[in-house]
């Protein structure tokens, strides 16, 4: 049984401008020790999905339906105080901007200690020792001194390491990382991703990595989910989705990236239009207004997520053979562009 199973999740927010369909029927699963990458642009619903797993979307104007099963227990059904025990202890989360995500007025050691003492009855001294061990493990130099530092005294890379340390200090079963490297320089990003991989190997933690960067996904994920407008467009093992993509949105994403091999003399192939508003999601397949291969059925009927090869599912009305053909072409064009 998968460690985390999200079943038909729907999250809607009632706002002044209308109902925002942030997550619209998402089903995902993560196995122990594996990495699930969720890729999508702004408004794809990937962050809201993660926050809902953590129980951080229980707002007065939110409607949440579906199931989020952690080892068989439905987190959505848990009362707030029970969920609080899970949050941070069994499922931890790190966010995009480590400067604003750490409290500016408390020392690092204090914040780490608090994370520990929120869930375990340990003395201050013991908590401090564990905090020190956590900082050492994430590779922070002079960790004992850093315990007395404030977040603004550290560099961006260091701060993100602290966040990772704080998330992993209680050895959670799942780590959710929401755009953990977007705000960092590319060389620091490489360090951080390396660190997460190493820690995952040591602790056996499952990782859910949320990003808009397909390159990051290609290098870290075991499984990939491509999200668009609150729904899953394509889901499958990394090799399948990246090397044999079968959804027009995935093709568009791959082709619009200026890669290391792309030719300078050719223009890029962007996706026409812009991501839709989640208040007025297009009918049928949400991607149809931007899809170069749109069929008459696409605006009428929302495509179901159907399996195409083992473990690889796609939500698209195009015939399978055609999808595979186009997917192969897209893939080939990426390789041979010089």
């Amino acid at each position, binding site marked *: 049984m998968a460690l985390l199973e999200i079943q038909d999740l729907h999250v809607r927010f009632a706002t002044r401008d209308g109902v925002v369909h942030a997550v619209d029927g998402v089903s995902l699963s993560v196995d122990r020790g594996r990495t699930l990458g969720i890729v999508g642009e702004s408004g794809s619903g990937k962050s809201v999905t993660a926050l809902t797993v953590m129980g951080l979307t229980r707002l007065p104007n939110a409607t949440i339906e579906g199931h989020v099963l952690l080892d068989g227990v439905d987190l959505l059904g848990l009362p707030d105080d029970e969920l609080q025990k899970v949050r941070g202890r069994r499922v931890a989360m790190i966010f995009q901007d480590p400067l604003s*995500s750490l*409290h500016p007025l408390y020392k690092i050691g204090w914040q780490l200690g608090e994370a520990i003492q929120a869930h375990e009855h340990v003395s201050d001294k013991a908590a401090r020792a564990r905090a020190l061990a956590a900082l050492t493990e994430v590779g922070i130099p002079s960790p004992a001194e850093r315990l007395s530092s404030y977040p603004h005294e550290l560099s961006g890379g260091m701060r993100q390491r602290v966040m990772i340390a704080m998330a992993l200090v209680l050895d959670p079963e799942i780590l959710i990382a929401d755009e953990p490297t977007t705000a960092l320089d590319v060389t620091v990003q490489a360090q951080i991703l390396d660190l997460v991989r190493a820690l995952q190997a040591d602790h056996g933690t499952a990782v859910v990595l949320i990003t808009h960067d397909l390159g990051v996904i290609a290098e870290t994920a075991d499984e990939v989910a491509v999200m668009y407008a609150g729904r899953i467009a394509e889901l499958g093992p990394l090799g399948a989705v990246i090397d044999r993509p079968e959804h027009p949105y995935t093709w568009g994403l791959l082709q619009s990236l200026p890669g290391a091999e792309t030719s300078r003399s050719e223009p890029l192939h962007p996706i026409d239009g812009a991501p839709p508003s989640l208040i007025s999601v297009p009918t049928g397949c949400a991607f149809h207004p931007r899809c170069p291969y749109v069929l008459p059925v696409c605006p009428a009927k929302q495509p179901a997520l159907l399996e195409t090869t083992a473990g690889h599912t796609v939500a698209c009305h195009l015939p399978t053979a055609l999808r595979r053909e186009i997917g192969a072409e897209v893939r080939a064009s990426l390789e041979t562009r010089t």
Partner: protein
Amino acid sequence: MLRYIVGRILWGAFLLVVVSALTFLIFTVFPSADPAALRAGRQATPELIAQIRHTLGLDRPVYVQYWIFLKGLVLHFDLGYSYQNSVSVKSQIFTRLPVTLSLTAGAFVIWMLAAIPIGVISAIRPRSLLDRATMGAALVAISAPVYFLGLIALFLFSNDIGVVHLLPGAGTYAPISVSPWHWFTSLLMPWCVLAAAFAAFYARMVRGNLIDTLGEDYIRTARAKGLSERRVVMRHGLRAALTPVVTMAGLDIGILLGGAILTETVFNIPGIGRYAYDSIINSDLPAIEGTVLFGAFFIITANIFVDILYAFLDPRVRY
């Protein structure tokens, strides 16, 4: 940091000199009652007035008068003698200082004890019925002037003229050394009246700051750590939201220490504010200078103190 403090203190001293000069200037330039004539009384002859003028040194040129004053202030810390009754201004102010301190301290405690819980509750449930009610009441409290509230309070609760004979009325202040209970009850109404507007203002400020703070990313992290909502609001949210509030309070205390003139007048409390009011009425320049300088001193000191306090409260601020 030490350099910073020393620099501020020097600058503050300079400001005090400027303030004293400006006060002198305003007094001499703008028409006011002749202090000598006031001192002389009703049956004053011109000779008597002239004699008094000479005694008080008012017949000398303005800059000489100022120079004498400044010398006395800087060298002897002497504020001169009242035109009205030749009593040392300094002694008058120091006698009254504990009174103003009592009034300020008590009001401060009450307004903070009221503002913080109200602000927090309103911030946790913005736009709820409770929030709208408290903020509406706050608006009323801010709009009502102190003397209006003070008179209403006296009318309702004071021992002598009030509807309900609950608390001692105006003019019944007794120092704490004489009778702690009496001191307390006589200040209760003034405290509440003075605190009302501040409490309202601060409640709105706490609410606003806390709402902003609760939208910050580090609050999301705190929740993600699995902390109780109570802890998230109080330890993470309030701690950040209160920093500017505390510094604002420091400044307000500095201003109040210079004398809450209206409150002291309505309740007839012998504080520095009352003294300032009397000295203006009597064109008593030394006393005016004294109260103005004291007020300026407290404000300048409060400013320096608050800036340094901010550096302790927010580690990102460094001098």
